[in-house]
């Protein structure tokens, strides 16, 4: 058995909303430099898991340990791409404004973004194929463009670990392709990318590692080792048969 270099470890994490547990004693280790999918049926606690790992939700019990990055600098080592539906896109801001928000953590309290941040944001927009949209009002973006803006906002953080909540949701095939290319590029830079993912058909193509979740951990390991019929059946209940094409 190979011992991996882990980027983040979760120990006995239990999270509950209104006393109803959503995650029960979840323990997981995510290796460094891998593209990691978190899959599971609706209500399995996928989003809850990454929010708890980011300390956005207080768990009932459990521990999350980030390796190599401790203390004050930790927040700048972690980037988060929330679901694009989580904000009101009619907010009075331009695309550039939103991308620059990714630098706010590095700037710290009170300091204002300046020319350097603006140039970084323009560069990052180029990377996600949105170079012509810098001064566009964000309410005019399509779903796929919103997703790419959020991606740019995370990329500009220049973090080590990326958490993404369904980045392919509501995105057309071409955008999906370009996002996958970006994920591979991040992997090439030895970044760890943890993605909440819904489409089981693409797990084997896009990801190296998969965590299968249904309130508890069903499996966690290399895609070729654990992404099989048996584990899928366990994670998704009787629906395993429907997923035949996926494995």
């Amino acid at each position: 058995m190979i011992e991996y270099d882990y980027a983040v470890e979760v120990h006995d994490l239990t999270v509950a909303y209104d006393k109803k547990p959503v995650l029960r004693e979840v323990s997981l280790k995510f290796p460094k430099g891998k593209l990691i999918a978190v899959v599971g049926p609706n209500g399995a606690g996928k989003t809850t898991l990454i929010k708890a790992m980011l300390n956005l939700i207080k768990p009932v019990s459990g521990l999350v340990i980030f390796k190599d990055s401790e203390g004050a600098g930790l927040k700048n080592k972690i980037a988060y791409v929330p679901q694009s539906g989580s904000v009101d896109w009619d907010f009075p801001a331009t695309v550039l404004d939103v991308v620059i928000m990714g630098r706010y953590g590095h700037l710290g309290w009170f300091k204002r973004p300046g020319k350097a941040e603006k140039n970084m944001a323009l560069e990052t927009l180029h990377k996600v194929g949105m170079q012509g949209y810098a001064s566009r009002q964000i309410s005019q973006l399509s779903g796929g463009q919103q997703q790419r803006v959020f991606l740019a906002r995370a990329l500009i953080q220049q973090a080590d670990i990326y958490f993404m909540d369904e980045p392919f949701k509501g995105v057309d095939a071409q955008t999906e392709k370009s996002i996958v290319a970006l994920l591979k590029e991040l992997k090439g830079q030895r970044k760890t990318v943890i993605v909440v993912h819904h489409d089981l058909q693409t797990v084997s193509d896009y990801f190296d590692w998969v965590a299968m979740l249904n309130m508890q951990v069903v499996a966690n390991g290399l895609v070729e080792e654990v992404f099989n019929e048996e584990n899928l059946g366990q994670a998704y209940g009787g629906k395993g048969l429907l997923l035949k094409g996926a494995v």
Partner: protein
Amino acid sequence: MMEAVLSLLGDYTFQIVALGSALLGVISGALGSFAVLRRQSLLGDGVSHAALPGVAIAFLLTHDKKTEILLLGALLMGFLGAFAILGIVRHSRVKFDSALALVMSVLFGLGLVLLTYSQKMPNAGQAGLKRFIYGQASTLLQRDIFLMMAIGTVLLLVVILFWKEFKLLSFDPEFAAALGFNTGKLDLLLSFLLVLAIITGIQTVGVVLMSAMLTAPAVAARQWSNRLWLMALLAAVFGAASGVAGTLLSSLVPVLPTGPVIVVCVTLIAAFSLLFAPERGVLHRVYRRLKNRAQFQTARESKI
């Protein structure tokens, strides 16, 4: 007419009242922008209504009619009201609108009862506590203006200082938390500023109409701007302009009450903006739809 306006502009009392109303407009316009974007306009309405019993309680306890003492009572009750509303939502299954309606009407009712009661107190003869219901800008004194200036300056400075943080908090609080900002404290600070802005305004326009001063300038400003700083700036300008215009109108026509006239002015600006603003205005949208339809039709006809 022109002469009347000119002589009015030179009048000291008019200057004081107009300055106070303009200040109120600036403060509520700037803070109101955040309230509108964070969907807290109704909470603002709850806070201002809840402030009324605070005025009466402050008077009953101290027997003092000084504005700052009455406003301190209003401030504390305003906070209590806000905490009561948010607390009910958090700890029960009652939804926001019901919690708001409940707390707002109960506290406003309590305020009316206490005001009536305190009017009967020996030294209450001209306490004029009733002015806090609908506002009475003409009772503004020079020292009230200084108080408003001081509070307004502090409010605006804090907003400028925390501009980037407030902007992020208003757009995406979860992302702000993921970046390591203490969003709980930021939220509390911004809410505190909002309550302070409301309390500063109730002497001029009253607790009933104060939420219009928060909402209308911001809604109007949003129609004309796509950037947050421009929206806040425009809202402040609209608020100030309504304050001055309202004071002017009510001074020229003696039967018109200042506070309500200010609110009518700001509402007119909002209505005009909703109808005629480019891009977001109702007329522009109708025009665009008709144009699209016409183009579609000519395209189809040319095919046939």
